[in-house]
């Protein structure tokens, strides 16, 4: 487990060194620099590690989405967010995103 955990978390931690600063949070897409990893790049990097890549990719994606914001294009020109094309290729993808937002608003 530790090795499967380090990869997505290290990729996420690296964003600190690449221009995504304190206070960015879920709505901070505008503060992402051009050199920071996008959601797509981070997820692809996590998958390239091989092994149990599905859950690692989920972990990397969750971190980067929390950091950069939601779907690409949904909050201005958010090139670092979840690609709209990817959402479209997931069955009930938009519905899942809507549920996630509702979940975050429950408390």
């Amino acid at each position, binding site marked *: *487990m530790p090795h499967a955990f380090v990869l997505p978390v290290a990729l996420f931690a690296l964003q600190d060194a690449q221009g995504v600063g304190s206070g960015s949070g879920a709505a901070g897409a505008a503060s992402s620099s051009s050199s920071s990893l996008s959601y797509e790049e981070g997820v692809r990097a996590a998958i390239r590690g091989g092994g149990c890549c599905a859950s690692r990719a989920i972990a990397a994606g969750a971190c980067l989405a929390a950091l950069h914001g939601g779907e690409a294009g949904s909050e201005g020109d958010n090139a670092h967010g979840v690609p709209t094309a990817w959402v479209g290729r997931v069955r009930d993808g938009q519905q899942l995103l809507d549920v996630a937002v509702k979940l975050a608003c429950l408390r």
Partner: protein
Amino acid sequence: MLFCIFLHAYIGEALANAFDAAFGTDSEYGPIDPKDSPKPLDGPWRHGSLKGFAALRGDPKQTKKLYPACGLTSDSQADCLARAVPVAALFSGTRRDPAAAAAAGSQDQPGSSSSMGSRALSDAVAAVTRVTQNTDVAVAFAQAFGALLGEVVARGSAPLQALAAAEKALLALDTRGENGEDGDSEDAADARESARQALATARTLASQEQGSGSGGAGNDQKGPSEPFLRTVLSYAAVPSLSEVTPKPIA
């Protein structure tokens, strides 16, 4: 305390029933595919812990395993990280705005140490993890990931700040037995220490990359450097963490 135990058992069994309906052997996912079945599968795919859960829960030869007995006692795969994501959203979703967090008090400042809220998050993550993975290691790593994600969503913490806060949240869980609350097993404490070291390792790797100037802000290079990727990707295949010495928490 007793109420919380019953509440988590209720939630756990409810989630197990939902998993049954969505991913069980009677669902559209069908019977569990044999290990040697040709890949890719001709149909929907379940990850390992869900397959184990479905096999255990849906075995007609055995009495239905109720929560937490429905969780595998030998599964510590990274599947548990996925369990933590919606829980972190639920427990952390109200304070995305750092200004609002600051107005709510110092406890919610970016990078602040654990609070009652983060403890409740950890307990809820443990409950949902044990539905499919009833192991201390899976629970500890899911708690670490939930704490990390919660820091970013709730407090707008920067990544390295969030990692340090997640380490502190794990350490805070170790003090429960000392305050007259129910403590947990030594194995659980060891698992949390392993998760904390993994967080520290990730933090060290990122700090080293930052220190090397390869990935610093203002650098036009796209993404992490090749040496960083090589090192980090090696952790996908090499279970030893001994090559990197975690730095103490600031």
